[in-house]
């Protein structure tokens, strides 16, 4: 990866290749415009310099509107094409594949804390298997950070108070840079890490060799009981609260008539701001857990509630 004068960073996902193609398109059109412009400027500057008395300056273009209309139309068309190209790639980035492997990321000044479904934890490193799509569920404990993997051509801000997601599907084993791309204070430039892409079998071995006190769902379940959530949400509870079994990924009708998909952000918001969105047919009784649950605990509870739905696929 180390060359003396690096000129290019190879893209290592299918998305990265598509982005690189887009880059080539943008670059080609820009260079075309620049060459044309510099050629004309250079030619005019030389040929029509004041010293060149011999240049033909009669028959100047007087009427300008057809020139104006044609170059305006040409630029507009080219821009529209580039817009559509960039936009459809971007929209593809919004939908993670159904079988993507969820990994939880909590950002804080100045480190990335990662937890896998099996409970394995790592800091400033993210081990992922080759050939499988990975979906990061990210939240921040303090300020805004941004999860940036240059080799995959993706980044997304991690904003405190909400959950953001990002997915990728590596196609080559190796070690890649992880950067924090949103300025976050003193050690912003040291909030970096490694993305380690391993063969499937190596990855499983790696998972098995980590110290684990329980899967995320198990730990989340412990917290669920510790906070007494089951007192209302459990089967046969005295208070009538929505059942959480099979909740994840479902469409939930709300009391204001709208419908929300129960994704990670919904579950998280429902714990922290339970009164903002009330499931239809229920009373607004639940207290807010804002400030009572740490960011790391929260993702475990979310993982637990997700596990109640049987599988961990992202919502459609």
């Amino acid at each position, binding site marked *: 990866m180390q*060359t003396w004068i690096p*000129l*290019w*960073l190879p893209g290592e996902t299918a998305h990265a290749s598509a*982005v690189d193609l*887009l*880059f080539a398109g*943008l670059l080609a059109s*820009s260079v075309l*415009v*620049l060459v044309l*412009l*510099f050629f004309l*400027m250079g030619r*005019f*500057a030389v040929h*029509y*310099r*004041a010293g060149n008395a011999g*240049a033909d300056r009669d028959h*100047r*273009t007087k009427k*300008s*509107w057809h*020139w*104006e209309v044609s*170059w*305006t139309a040409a*630029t*507009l068309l080219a*821009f529209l094409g*580039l*817009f559509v*190209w*960039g936009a459809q790639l*971007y*929209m593809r*980035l919004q939908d993670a594949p159904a079988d993507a492997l969820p990994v939880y990321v909590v950002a804080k*000044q100045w480190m990335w804390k990662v937890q896998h479904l099996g409970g394995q934890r790592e800091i400033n490193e993210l081990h992922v298997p080759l050939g499988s799509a990975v979906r990061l569920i990210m939240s921040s404990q*303090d300020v*805004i950070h941004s999860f940036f993997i240059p080799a995959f*051509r*993706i*980044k*997304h*801000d991690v*904003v*405190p*108070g909400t959950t*953001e997601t990002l997915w990728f599907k590596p196609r080559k084993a190796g070690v890649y840079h992880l950067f*924090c*791309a*949103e*300025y976050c*204070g*003193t050690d*912003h*430039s*040291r909030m970096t890490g490694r993305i380690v892409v391993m063969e499937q079998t190596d990855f499983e071995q790696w998972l098995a060799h980590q110290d684990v006190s329980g899967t995320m769902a198990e730990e989340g379940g412990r917290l669920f009981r510790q906070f007494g959530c089951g007192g209302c949400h459990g089967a046969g509870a005295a208070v009538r609260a929505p059942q959480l079994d099979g909740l994840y990924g479902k469409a939930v009708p709300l009391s204001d008539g709208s419908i929300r998909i129960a994704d990670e952000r919904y579950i998280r918001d429902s714990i922290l*701001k339970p009164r903002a969105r009330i499931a239809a047919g229920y009373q607004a009784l639940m207290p807010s857990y804002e400030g009572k649950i740490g960011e790391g605990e929260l993702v475990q509870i979310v993982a637990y509630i997700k596990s109640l739905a049987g599988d961990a696929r992202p919502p459609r």
Partner: protein
Amino acid sequence: MTARNYLTEDNSLRSWFFTTDHKRVAVLYAASITLFFFIGGAAATIIRLELATPQADLVTSDVYNRLFTIHGVIMVWFFLIPSIPATLGNFVVPLMIGARDLAFPRLNLTSWYLFVLGGGVTLYAVFAGGIDTGWTFYAPFSTMYSNSHVVLAVTGVFIAGFSSILTGLNFIVTIHRLRAPGLTWYRLPLFLWSLYSTSVILVLATPVLAMTLLLVALDRFAGIGIFDPARGGDPLLFQHLFWFYSHPAVYIMILPGMGVVSELISVYSRKAVFGYKFVAWSAVAIAVVGFFVWGHHMFVSGQSPFAGLVFSFMSFIVAVPSAIKVFNWTATMHKGFIRFDAPMLYALAFIGLFTIGGLTGLFLACLAYDVYVTDTYFVVAHFHYIMVGGMVTAYFGGLHYWWPKITGRMYPEYWARAAAILIFFGFNMTFFPQFILGILGMPRRYHVYPPEFQVWHVMSSAGASILAVAYLLPLFYLGWSMFFGKRAPSNPWQATGLEWQTPSPPPSHNFATTPVVKRNPYDYSLEGEARPQNA
């Protein structure tokens, strides 16, 4: 014995600090922004020195963060935004429209005092320990987590904001109400069209920044929680409010430059600007459409994908009027009598650098590509091509062009051309490598960085040292020319504008008799002879 002019009218210090003459206010502004330019430049110099190696060796991370914050805050609010409008604009707007002064001369002086006060408060924040939020003051870092003088700095910018609002207000009203007889809108020089558009942005966007900064300050010391997620606030709301100002502010920092270049290209090509109406209205279009695009700073921030699509689309649209201008400037040179005086060299450099900056702007408007290069050095390179390659170059071009009018002296042409060329090369050497760094994935605002990026950083730092020398040159030869330069005639460039039809330097009241405008601007004969607007 020279005739009395605005410089020699009264030499007491008091007459300068209580002047209501727009020309003197312009000189006051020029002096103060020059000071700020070199303060911001000093910060940039240390940054570039530090980045020559991947490790931290010159300063600590906390100091580094303060340096790039100061560089940004000073350069944006205390140099770029007032640069062309408050100095060149202040000086030539009344002259170009044949008026005796701006509509509100006392307000104009007030605006300079507010600027100095805001600058003073900001500098105090710097010397009291600095600010480490970046010029963008992103919440909740600025409101909850930063341990630096955020409230002071924000106060300084807040005050300076009112200074720019007052300048904008003054220009708008002046251009509407104080034009000389016969000076219709389509006879206005294009510099005025772009200053008018700039003023519209100043007046309508700056108050939103004022409110945003006020909320940041209140969030910080009064805990109102508007941007604090722990209190139910939304950090993205800060970004919406901030960029509602700060994206249009980018056009505050380029439109005046476009205006200057329109003047220069025409004068030194001895030809009317090609497609006058298109160039004029494209300035207005940029000012208006520029308000619809701010969300392109937020494509990866957690804004909804739908909003991303809208903002991306609008960002492509706003690039069209800029393209129109570039094409028209080039067409203006066609069949002209092109002279390569220093201002023209700056104008040509502007077109080239601005075009590169603008085209790379398309990369950033393009959703999927922006996801990759936003918050990397690609963005840093892009906006320096616009702000420094564009605006600062245009400022120097305009400064040289109107220098004889302002000081009554000619600058030394040889040195001026040398500086222009040196600036052009130093600039490209500094900032072009940063595009490559961005494409390699180097994030911005990094104090230490992985070693594979070093070679490009070294090149950039080397370029920066050339650029630093190049920017110091004009300080010396322009300073020299103020006292020893050749005396300037009233119209050294044989230009058509009204400002050239009065002595250099102009008398205190600009014109002996109010000029009557009879012609379009840029009226040159086929042989390149100028026909002044009032002839």
